[in-house]
């Protein structure tokens, strides 16, 4: 068992014929993902690579294939519409890779997702990967092997770095999840931490955060109260210049400046093993 999906999960790809869409769909299928259809308005009835049917709408794809998950990989102006379409077609899990979606659009889209009880991962995220089973998104498979460590991260390439370090230390992962670093996202650290806590195949968890916002502080509170499994963390951006300040309002809303120092302290106080160098994480977990 893993979280979010497995080799049987039926996946449709919204934007399957685009440059990025086709490239990554092929990689996903090579890895074992059960891609049952693609959605491109106006291209319904065609075939992708002669073996994946293309539909005009997500609704039609769901009716024909029984898909429960969708990957949205379309340009920013179309992505919020794609997310809402997937929700309306009854898709349970939507993974949106698209970057540069305006925040106002995402607030509307996430409100729609929540109101209908669906789950959105992203946007602007690398997706998730269950080692040797499947992936939805763009996480390179070379950083993954089956194991017991759950990885959850705001940042794409930092995730690859830590997945790779775990592998080099002979450790594997249960599931690797990129939640995305945009201001408004569908799935939070806390959502994924809860899934890992409840997943019998996950024995320990790695959390990779960044400066800005307060998601890591909220995660620290959750870990302290609800998690029995050991958690190691790294927060990127200790040397970064102070981010753009949101006037007084930003500090009032978030109750802090969102520095690496604040976050490291909150995590350490919650009993999390805080790494100064992400390549130390395997060692920290071995000793936990």
């Amino acid at each position: 068992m893993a979280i979010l999906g497995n080799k049987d999960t039926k996946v449709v790809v919204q934007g399957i014929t685009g440059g990025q869409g086709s490239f990554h769909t092929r990689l996903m299928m090579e890895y074992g993902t059960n891609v049952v259809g693609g959605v491109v308005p106006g291209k319904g009835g065609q075939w992708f690579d002669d073996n994946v049917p293309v539909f005009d709408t997500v609704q039609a794809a769901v009716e024909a294939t029984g898909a429960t998950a969708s990957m949205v990989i379309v340009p920013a102006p179309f992505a919020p519409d794609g997310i809402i379409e997937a929700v309306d077609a009854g898709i349970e899990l939507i993974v949106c890779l698209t970057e540069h979606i305006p925040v106002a659009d995402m607030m509307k889209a996430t409100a729609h997702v929540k109101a209908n009880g669906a789950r959105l991962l992203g946007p602007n995220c690398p997706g998730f990967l269950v080692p040797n089973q499947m992936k939805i998104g763009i996480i390179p498979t070379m950083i993954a092997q089956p194991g017991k460590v759950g990885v959850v991260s705001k940042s794409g390439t930092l995730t690859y770095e830590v997945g790779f370090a775990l592998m080099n230390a002979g450790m594997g992962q249960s599931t690797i999840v990129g939640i995305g670093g945009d201001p408004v996202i569908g799935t939070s650290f806390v959502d994924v931490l809860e899934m890992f806590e409840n997943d019998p195949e996950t024995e320990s968890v790695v959390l990779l955060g960044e400066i800005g916002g307060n998601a890591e502080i909220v995660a620290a509170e959750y870990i302290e109260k609800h998690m029995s499994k050991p958690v190691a963390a790294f927060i990127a951006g200790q040397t970064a210049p102070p981010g753009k300040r949101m006037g007084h309002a930003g500090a009032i809303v978030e109750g802090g400046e969102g520095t690496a120092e604040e976050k490291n302290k909150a995590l350490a106080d919650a009993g999390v093993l805080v790494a100064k160098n992400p390549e130390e994480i395997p060692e920290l977990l071995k000793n936990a």
Partner: protein
Amino acid sequence: MKLHEYQSKFRFAEFGIPIPKGKVATTPEEAMTIAQELDSNVVVVKAQVHVGGRGKAGGVKLAKSPAEAKEHAEAILGMDIKGLTVEKVLIDPGADIKDEIYLAITNDRSAGMPLIIASAEGGMDIEELAKTDPDKIVREHIDPIWGLKSYQANSVASRMNLSREQWRPFVKILMGLYQCFAESDAELAEINPLVVQGDGSLLAVDGKMIIDDSALPRQKKLAAMRDSSEEGEEEILAREAGISYVKLDGTIGCMVNGAGLAMTTMDMTKLYGGEEYGPANFLDIGGGATPETVATALKIILSDENVKAVLINIFGGITRCDDVANGFIEAYNIVQPDVPIVMRLQGTNAKEGREIIENANIPNLQSAETLTDAAQKAVAAAKGGN
């Protein structure tokens, strides 16, 4: 993207929010003419720069005559405030300040909704007030699909304990501010202070807006307001190439793919090199960078004279290591850098990338296996270059 005070207030005015009848000057003479036209006993000369604390730095001055306004403008224009040169001043008529209200709308990320923050006790110390007396700050979330409803605006006015005669104008300003916030794709629209004048009327005396960068393609009018005079030449070059670049004070130039890994790489140079051999810049070449992007990135990094070594850390996902290697060699041949370079290629097409680099036989270039190895080699190379 931040807007200047004058740009924010002029935008507010388009949504019916009362603002002072001021104008912008770029020369002392213009400042004097504007002060004459304003026909006010007192005018305020305000530096237009994207930094906080301009008042304390001497960037805001009261003038009792047009001649004095000219003098102040002369002093403020060209002034350096926290590294930025003042190019413009706003000349506003003085306001008759009885009370100061704080009113802002920003995005509450964790709630995924816009949030109104308001207080009858506005002014500079609003953040302090939020800590010491949080009950004096009124908060109201806005449903992103429905938008702000007028009962909510009334509720805010009520909870702020505004006097009854101020309700109607305040609610009108709040509804206008939300409309402005939504139609501008703003991440922040802040009025501080919203002044209650002697006659009871309200006036937005200072304003700030931040526009969501991702929405700039559809906010063409606002995008055209960008003040490039505050960006360095390299920053403009980077932005146009789709690279995120911020210059810093250290000596190790960093080129990385992905913001999180870029910050991690910076942190690692400081971890092993301390302040002096810390990062010279933040640079994210983005996902799926082409050889051209890499070439531009290398030129930008090397244009910083403080750079004693360059650390290239690429973990390929969407980005392909062979593309990075090709771009690097192209740029290397043009720039011919004499600083040592440490390069680490991992992930998608790493093997091909490393072969390209090896076959090019570049002097002064070392390869690294892990991130730790790369950071340590870069620090050692920078030190050796002294």
